[in-house]
């Protein structure tokens, strides 16, 4: 069923359309909320609130974005409201200085990356990455999740997180380098 038809049916309160939208989007939304570090119960609450908000707002939905992007936008706004008391995104991040120190004045590696190389990359990383993800600030985590896990395009991510393309690149730079630095420390500790 084309998305426009599905939205029209939702506007008319069609129960089959509700079932379909729940079937299509619940897993990705839940994965997004869990990926942000919410507990399973909180993640389910957030996803439920997201669908409730969609149904309230569907009359105003004009199809300028996809339903999925629209839902993710609601989810991340709700998550932000809940997490408002937590640390806010800082204008600077210590990773910027850490990254700078990796290179000499000609831009060559002065402290090359340590840890496994492409021939020995192992599955053990899966165990370690959870802690490193949790250490990321929410905005970096959200950007990384949408880009790498959900593989959404940059325009959709900017729309969902309400950030500019330049800010998104900063968030991705910090998220990826924070994760790699964190993993490198863990790899080294294991040696």
């Amino acid at each position, binding site marked *: 069923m084309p998305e426009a038809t599905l939205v029209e049916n939702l506007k008319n309160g069609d*129960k089959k359309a*509700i*079932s379909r939208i*729940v*079937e299509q989007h*619940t*897993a990705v939304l*839940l*994965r997004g909320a*869990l*990926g942000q570090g919410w507990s*399973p119960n909180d993640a*389910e609450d957030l*996803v*439920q609130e997201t*669908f*409730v908000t969609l*149904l309230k707002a569907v009359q105003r939905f004009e199809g300028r974005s996809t339903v999925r992007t629209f839902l993710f936008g609601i989810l991340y706004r709700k998550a932000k409201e809940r997490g408002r008391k937590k640390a806010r995104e800082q204008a600077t991040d210590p990773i910027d200085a850490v*990254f700078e120190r*990796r*290179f000499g004045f*000609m*831009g*060559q*590696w002065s402290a*090359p*990356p340590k*840890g*496994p*190389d*492409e021939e020995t*990359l192992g599955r053990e*990383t*899966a165990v370690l*990455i*959870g802690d490193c*993800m949790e250490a990321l600030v929410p905005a970096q985590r959200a950007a*990384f*999740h949408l*880009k*790498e*896990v959900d593989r959404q395009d*940059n325009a959709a991510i900017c729309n969902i997180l309400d950030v500019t393309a330049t800010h*998104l*690149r*900063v968030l*991705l*730079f910090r998220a*990826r*380098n924070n*994760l*790699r630095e964190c*993993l*490198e420390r863990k790899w080294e500790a294991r040696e």
Partner: protein
Amino acid sequence: MILTNCKEMAARGTRGEFDDASWFTRLLVRAHLLMCRHCRRFKAQMELISAEARQRADDLLEPARLADFKRKLVRRLGR
């Protein structure tokens, strides 16, 4: 733009600037990677992090709980 050094490779790569780069830029990236084992390692580690993050996200979803939650959602939203 010519990729002159490792720092630029790592910075632009992690900002995602090579995702939709021109064929010429991609050629320069490939050439740099052929010559630089540190950048190859850096890139491989970044790819591993993405792959493991995807795997971890899938592992967090419990199929039985998800199916139950979907049923509850449809009931609640359909009222």
